């Protein structure tokens, strides 16, 4: 990983409009991300991903909506009054029709622009951030484990 970004993609056997629904409808986002989701699906719209069992809430802002091709948000990594490049990273989804399916690509970038505070408290908050997602998604993985072989 030589650059300031993480890129991942997958080929899905479903058309872009179906994939679009899964990544933008709160009731679907709940199935692959946080148990509670607030999302105002428009440019500048506010969003929040809430993990009640860990008492954790990740605030975000929608920065791009182009149905059914592109969806992007910035999410906050560091507590701050205003969301900006210094406290958030950018998550961009791109959907491309491929045959009868969809290539879904996600890029998370901007890690080096974030002014991570030096004090230990903030570092721990962020570590909990990542662990919280992993734990929750680990649970979901276990639940969905039976169908995993079929889908992947």
């Amino acid at each position, binding site marked *: 990983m030589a650059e300031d970004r993480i890129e991942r993609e997958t080929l899905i056997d*479903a058309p872009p409009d179906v994939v679009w629904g899964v990544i933008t409808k709160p009731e679907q986002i709940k199935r692959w991300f946080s148990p509670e989701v607030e999302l105002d699906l428009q440019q500048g719209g506010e969003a929040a991903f809430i993990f009640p069992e860990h008492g954790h809430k990740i605030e975000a802002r929608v920065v791009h909506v182009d149905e059914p091709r592109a969806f992007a948000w910035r999410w906050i990594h560091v507590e701050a009054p205003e969301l900006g490049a210094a406290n958030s990273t950018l998550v961009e989804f791109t959907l491309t029709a491929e045959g009868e399916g969809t290539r879904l690509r996600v890029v998370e970038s901007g*890690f080096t622009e974030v002014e991570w505070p030096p004090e230990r408290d903030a570092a721990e908050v962020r570590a909990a951030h990542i662990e919280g997602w992993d734990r929750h998604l680990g649970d979901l993985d276990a639940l969905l484990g039976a169908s995993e072989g079929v889908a992947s």
Partner: protein
Amino acid sequence: MRGATLERPAQEEGDGDGLWAAIGEPSRRRIVDVLLVRGESTPSGLAADLPFTRQAVSKHLGVLDRAGLVEGRRAGREMRWAIRPERLDAATKEMRAVADSWDRRLRLIKEIAEQIHAEQQQGKQSKEKEQR
């Protein structure tokens, strides 16, 4: 960075953030790469190997030093710098954790979308049967 066996000093635990910012920047990655190959080098030596000025190299080394990724020792007029492998290992692990999280999320998105699509196709087929 497999095989790094040194313990991370206690005061540095949980301090993954500075690491990330330090190593995510492409120019600094190149300095890290050269230091890994050479084992130890001076700002002048690094500037000779890379398309950066000695001043730029020193600036990047400063960031890497503050993140604890490199350590320097004075040798004559210049500092000699080397990688701290245990810290580099921590930084790469953290980046891998975020990448793994996205792999998991994409796998779930794929499963959910394919399930919805399959159900829609089945619904369409049974409707067509009814019409026949």
